């Protein structure tokens, strides 16, 4: 498994500027542990804290260090072919995920697109049903990734948790909140681009 400091460093690379709560969710560490890693990384000049907002971000040196260590990890595990293949699978799924998030936010009634007010349980059930089907296929890609590099295993857990939170009534956890399925999926997208060194 990747070293804890690399996981925190790379989480900032994928999430962008973030606070402890968000980084704890991303890495699966407790907040004090995340903070301890961040302090060490700050001493090394790799991350910086914005005191006004209490949020952390990478320095230029931190970005360069992340590229180096993530690439080293990928090559020493000889994981590039497997991650590349999984990324192809991700790209097939990506438009469908965005369709599903859009369908959760908007629906067509009498040919008019309106905001989904979540007052029609049968419509929401239909979207969630397709989402569950989607997730089964997404989980396959996540499993391939975590075989290649164990740190990817976290995404499968987090995506499943976001879907479960939605099913239990937290409606913003699919497409809308910063801990939503959509947000985690976008982080995974960013992670794959960063890991393979593909520019946006």
């Amino acid at each position, binding site marked *: 498994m990747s070293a804890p400091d690399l996981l925190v460093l790379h989480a900032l690379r*994928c*999430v*962008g*500027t973030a606070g402890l709560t968000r980084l704890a969710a991303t890495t699966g560490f407790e907040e004090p542990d995340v903070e301890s890693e961040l302090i060490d990384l700050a001493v090394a000049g790799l991350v910086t804290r914005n005191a006004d907002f209490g*949020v952390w971000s990478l320095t230029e040196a931190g970005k360069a260090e992340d590229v180096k260590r993530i690439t080293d990890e990928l090559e020493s595990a000889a994981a590039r072919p497997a991650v590349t293949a999984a990324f192809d699978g991700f790209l097939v799924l990506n*438009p*469908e995920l*965005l*369709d*599903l*998030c*859009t*369908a959760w*936010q*908007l629906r*067509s*009634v*009498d*040919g*008019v*697109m*309106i*905001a989904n007010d979540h007052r029609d349980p049968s419509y929401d059930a*239909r*979207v969630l*049903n*397709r989402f569950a*089907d*989607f997730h089964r*296929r997404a989980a396959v890609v996540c499993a391939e990734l975590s075989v290649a590099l164990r740190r990817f295993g976290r995404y499968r857990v987090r995506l499943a948790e976001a879907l479960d939170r939605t099913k239990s009534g937290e409606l*913003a956890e699919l*497409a*809308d*909140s*910063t801990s*939503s399925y*959509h*947000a985690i999926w*976008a*982080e995974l*997208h*960013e992670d794959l681009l960063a890991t393979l060194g593909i520019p*946006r």
Partner: protein
Amino acid sequence: MKWIRQLSADVDESADLLGGKAHGLVALHRLGLPVPAAFVVTTETCRAYLRDGRLPDGLDEELAAAVAGFDVVSVRSGAPVSMPGMMNTILNLELTSVAAALSAVETVFSSWNTPRAQTYRELHDIPHDLGTAAIVQRMVFGDRDEHSGTGVAFSRDPNTGAHVPFGDVLFGHQGDDVVSGRSQTLPLSALAEREPAVWSGLLDALSRVEAHYRDACYVEFTYESGELWLLQVRPGKFGGAAAIRVATDLADEGVIDRREALLRVSPHHLQHVRTPRIAPDENVLARGLGACPGVATGRVATTSEAAVRMNGPVILVRPETSPHDMRGLAAATGILTARGGPASHAAVVARAMGKPAVVGVGELVLSEGTLVTIDGTSGEVVLGEPRIVTTTADAHLQRLLSWADDVSGDHSERDEAQRLTAAHAVLRR
């Protein structure tokens, strides 16, 4: 032929068999409008393919006969119900053999069952066994020479419903460059000066298709060496204020009666009728796709850091967005992206935050700090602080609602949706 129909004015079969796109092409033929030579492999063929897992016997002989005389073609999907962007399209296919045609048809048919297409059908109540047709059509080249180009046109303005042609044109390019947003298009009216004969042919076509569909229409066209060709037609399906204006105007023009005008406007159209909009006479700098309705004015921030740092309202302007932009998205009053469609990351996040957003505006150079206004309904981008209106169709709406009251016989004070719903109840009785 059992599986194939040559498209002409004589075909009288339904959209269920031909698919919506081919059915529209037949309508264009009947109106005497120019359509590149084409044949359609029917939805029934696709259903046989989906059922048996292979193309039906006899299709190869029919294709061998049908492709005679064709050289370079497009092969497009066309289901009985519109499923935009869900299935495969093959352009610039050289029909060197029957095998090439069979393989292209199979590619289109098999794209019916991608998981994404299945999800789309589930969400839109479209039966899974409907199948798609495949249209094989002679390619016309918008990039042939300096008198060639391509575009899309509405017979009326889809933002306001006003009775003026509206759309985009791209000189010297093929059609997929317009739809993909890869190239910067010009307003349709640029065609009038550059290719007057094509322009007048297009105006004539728009008026004929409107008369046929008795509704505002959308067409895709290409002109090749000065010659106009129509590639697709469908009713316009306008939203909000534009739907109200078109229905009312068509009744006033005597094209439809008032009862039908009332039935064409859903109470849901009224929800968006008072969403703030940039006034119609403002100078539009660029146009993308509206992704979240509403108007936002602010200074351009081209990075999330700048959006957080700058004082006062900002419009976050990005090529596209990623998780890195979350703070900028949160700090911004409105969102503008060069790339992406209505289901892009930026669009999903903008709706989650309830912020006006325009996506897919193309490469647009805006320097940091410039004051701009975006309209998340129409996709318009305007420099500075334009005039904002809360409805572009108030007079039309009041007329339509007075017809509604005449139908229901109830002239009491009620909200607008109730007045319309009461009229619908009588008309649908």
